[in-house]
């Protein structure tokens, strides 16, 4: 019974993961040639459109002030990766511990 439930879960997880991948990838093919642009520029364009005039931000990001310009794209992706890495690291660490604990528990139960 228990193993049946487990394999049922595995199927669900796999199906969900495939769905996630599909939703994420399909737009690339549907909207060929679209820019898939970054964040800040398009946002500012919209503010200008609504307010009807060019808008000058009254505060520049601290980092850009220190660098005297925008963060280079490659470095930006580095920091984004760092953020992902920290998160995945924490999740993987705890998940690993939990999985191992479960394994030990089942072993102990089998022995007794």
């Amino acid at each position, binding site marked *: 019974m228990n193993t049946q439930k487990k394999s049922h879960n595995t199927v669900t997880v796999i199906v969900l993961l495939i769905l996630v991948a599909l939703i994420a990838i399909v737009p690339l093919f549907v909207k060929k040639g679209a*820019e898939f642009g*970054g964040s800040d520029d398009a946002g500012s364009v919209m503010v200008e459109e609504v307010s009807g005039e060019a808008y000058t931000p009254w505060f*520049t990001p601290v980092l850009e002030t220190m660098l005297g310009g925008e963060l280079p794209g490659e470095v930006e992706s580095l920091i984004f990766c760092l953020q992902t890495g920290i998160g995945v690291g924490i999740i993987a660490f705890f998940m690993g511990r939990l999985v191992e604990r479960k394994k030990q528990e089942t072993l102990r139960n089998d022995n007794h």
Partner: protein
Amino acid sequence: MSKKQRKTVAVCAVLALSLGIMPVANAMHIMEGYLPAGFCVVWGVLCVPFLVAGFFSIRNKLSENRRALTILAMSGAFIFVISSLKIPSVTGSCSHMTGTGLGAILFSPSAVSILGIIVLIFQAILLAHGGLTTLGANTFSMAIAGPFLAFAVYQICQKLKVNRKVSIFLAAALGDIFTYCVTSVQLAMAYPSESGGVAASIVKFLGVFAPTQLPLAVIEGLLTVIIVIGLETYAMPELKSIGFIKEQEVR
């Protein structure tokens, strides 16, 4: 129709809906320096009570039992991962998810405000993404409004005896969407349109934010369900100890 078939139809409907609408836009946090100073202060002040409540909520939960720390760390890490992934959307631009639904469901929405603000500060300082002046507004939308809605949706679904996985999906996805609705309102209040005032402006900002975010909200919902399945399989004692799963529910 059998249950399975109905599910298939529902999934198809959601996909069709999300693929059907596509104006071009970018849905992101509010940029540095893009809210007038007054708004920055007001949103910031509004966040304070939630952050304080969140701080106490986390402290109480942890002093009750240390085990909760594992789940808390994982919810925080989940926000870190999810909000760093920029995903292409059907509108031809990229956006990212919030990841705040998980923590809100497992812990309390106020606890998530603390986790969320950590991520926002990280991105504001290191990535010039979002911003320090708009931190208050972004915290309110991503770390307060979204999680609270997710929590409410989950509670309602539980009351209505909706399947747990479905409730989690709905809570996380709607929380994600709601975050960007609040962002639209915040922008609209700062930039009312000349002809129709704030309301017209809200419609305008929503029109460009929502379609981009819709498929991503679906992804966030699915990912949240996946991680909860993982936790249910391996971390049952923790889930019980934080009261997410009641003793008698366990089969």
